[in-house]
């Protein structure tokens, strides 16, 4: 009997990720991996510009995607113990595994750092990477991902895309999208490993060993849904997992230096886009046939988007340094030489002021001051000669959301004496966690006027609170 070929990938996190070519489903997925859109992920860094702070964090969306598939396969082995052994269940499980593999295939250059650019211009495909992901999965021309999926099973591309777009809310979707999904289980551990931080450890094997499937109380549609639940011995592992995800935000994902670099890149690309839209391509420093120029002319063109990746954006910096536009030239130089704007942590100042004035943190007071300062700075930036002199960064992360209108599928449930209990009701640490809010302004090192304006605006907002 001939040996069945196994496609093997060595991974720093999971060690060995295999695709068994003797299995028609995995053989099909390996074909998907070989497509141009999936291969593009090799050139998209998982953490955008985080390597400005963590030089080891240069890993790609490609290996993360394979890792999510590998983790989803582990989760699915647990699911399969609880569902009937029927063809419709098998195909649903396979659709979720394919969705796990493909969930990030539409990420733009620099990962999440590119999306605000799309949002600011109302470009759908790059404004939210899920839109581009969906378009790639549903594309059925010859050799495209959608065609490969549909050749495996009629209508399979739609099944996969529908899971990524959020429905139906089955246990299979939990594998791809929940507070305990394969994506999160991969990225927290991978980003920790590659960044080199020693925070945010996850007791993965123990979590998996204690994972079960449970049936929830009826939700607002009156449906009892199945989802992942953890045994009672995993309460602290679950608590640690939630804390770990949370800790990654201030220390890695929302690190002030990384975000400062991203803001420079976004502001620079925004100006380039405006120049192209105004017909001033020559002033950008880019040639007419540069992938970025083509993209800014046709931001919703799938073929044009397929040429965009980190190497295109970072490789454009030497050209953009030759731009006639002062901002583009300056920001491109700063990004190429890591001479970033200086961060002013306004959130810390506000929190300190609230504590001094009220004795305890007040979420509404924070939002009022942040909103006031933001608006005054935006009004200042709209004045002549103020363009790009202050870059603002606001970001929020809730470590664990209480059960709200979205329903019970988003919670982490603990199996406790025959009933299911929200982790918040078993872990005082989880119940007590607040919201992390980043609020910063960035100014050039010698721009005393801009710095002074930020300082005075912040002081006035605090004084007037």
């Amino acid at each position: 009997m001939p040996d069945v070929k196994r496609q093997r990938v060595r991974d720093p996190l999971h060690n060995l990720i295999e695709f068994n070519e003797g299995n028609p489903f995995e053989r099909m997925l390996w074909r998907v991996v070989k497509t141009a859109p999936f291969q593009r992920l090799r050139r998209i860094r998982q953490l955008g510009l985080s390597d400005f702070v963590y030089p080891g964090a240069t890993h790609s969306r490609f290996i993360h995607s394979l890792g999510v598939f590998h983790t989803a396969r582990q989760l699915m082995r647990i699911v399969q113990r609880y569902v009937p052994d029927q063809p419709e269940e098998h195909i649903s499980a396979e659709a979720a595994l394919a969705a796990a593999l493909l969930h990030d295939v539409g990420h733009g250059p620099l990962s999440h750092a590119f999306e605000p650019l799309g949002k600011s211009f109302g470009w759908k495909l790059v404004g939210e990477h899920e839109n581009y992901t969906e378009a790639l999965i549903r594309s059925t021309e010859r050799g495209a991902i959608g065609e490969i999926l549909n050749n495996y099973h009629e209508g399979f591309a739609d099944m996969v895309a529908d899971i990524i777009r959020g429905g139906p809310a089955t246990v299979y979707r939990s594998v791809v999208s929940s507070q305990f999904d394969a994506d999160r289980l991969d990225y927290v551990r991978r980003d920790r490993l590659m960044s080199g931080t020693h925070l945010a450890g996850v007791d993965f094997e123990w979590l998996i060993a204690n994972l079960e499937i449970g049936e929830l109380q009826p939700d607002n549609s009156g449906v009892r849904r199945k989802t992942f639940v953890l045994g009672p011995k995993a309460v602290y592992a679950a608590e640690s997992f939630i804390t770990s995800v949370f800790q990654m935000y201030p220390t890695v994902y929302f690190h002030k230096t990384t975000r400062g670099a991203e803001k420079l890149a976004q502001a620079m690309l925004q100006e380039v886009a405006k120049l192209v839209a105004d017909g001033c391509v020559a002033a950008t420093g880019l040639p007419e046939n540069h992938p970025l120029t083509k993209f800014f002319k046709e931001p919703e063109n799938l073929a044009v988007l397929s040429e965009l990746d980190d190497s295109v954006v970072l490789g454009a910096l030497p050209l953009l340094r030759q731009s006639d536009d002062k901002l583009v030239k300056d920001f491109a130089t700063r990004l190429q030489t890591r001479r970033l704007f200086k961060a002013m942590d306004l959130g810390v100042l506000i929190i300190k002021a609230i504590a001094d004035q009220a004795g305890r943190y007040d979420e509404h007071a924070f939002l009022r001051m942040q909103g006031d300062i933001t608006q005054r700075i935006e009004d200042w930036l709209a004045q002549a000669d103020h363009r790009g002199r202050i870059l603002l960064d606001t970001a929020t992360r809730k470590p664990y959301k209480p059960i709200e209108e979205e329903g019970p599928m988003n919670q982490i449930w603990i199996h406790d004496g025959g009933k299911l209990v929200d982790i918040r009701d078993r872990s005082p640490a989880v119940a007590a966690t607040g919201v992390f809010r980043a609020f910063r302004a960035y100014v050039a090192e010698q721009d005393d006027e801009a710095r002074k304006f930020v300082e005075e605006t912040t002081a006035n907002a605090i004084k007037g609170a």
Partner: protein
Amino acid sequence: MSEMPKSLRDRLNPIAQVIRDAGGEIVGRTKLQKTVYLLTLAGFEKQFRFGYKHYGPFSEALADATDLAVAFGLIFEHQQQAAWGGTYSVYTAPPGEQSAQPSRIRLTQAAAQSDAVLLELAATAAYLAQEGKPRPWAETARRKPDKAANGRLDRAKELYAQLREASDNALPEIRLE
């Protein structure tokens, strides 16, 4: 707090206006989102851009502005407990004038008084139609099979027809497939 910048007030006031047009109260974040989406689709609102999330059309900018409007006291938010265990938000606005456009007010009130699941289905189908999907209702049913079950898809179609009528046909017609 020192006086709020006018530009900020102008940005947040439309949310209070929608709640006032609804009669002073909108129950649920989802309903607020879908109501503002339909107002946007009908051309009565222009400020918020919507994308597609798990629960249909959703605007992150609207969600952020809503939190900010609550923080500034332009609207109020009360958390309530649902029978199924979750919590939901009830938004109210201080008394004030309603919009000058009767069709805008009728659409807002019809949306705010409708069943939340039917409104989500109707808004989703309208969004998919705007995105050029040839069979928006069928696709809505495929994406949300549980919510579309038990005759709810047909009732959502009826709801959309009522909303469109309330808007004086400012909402676009969408295919019934």
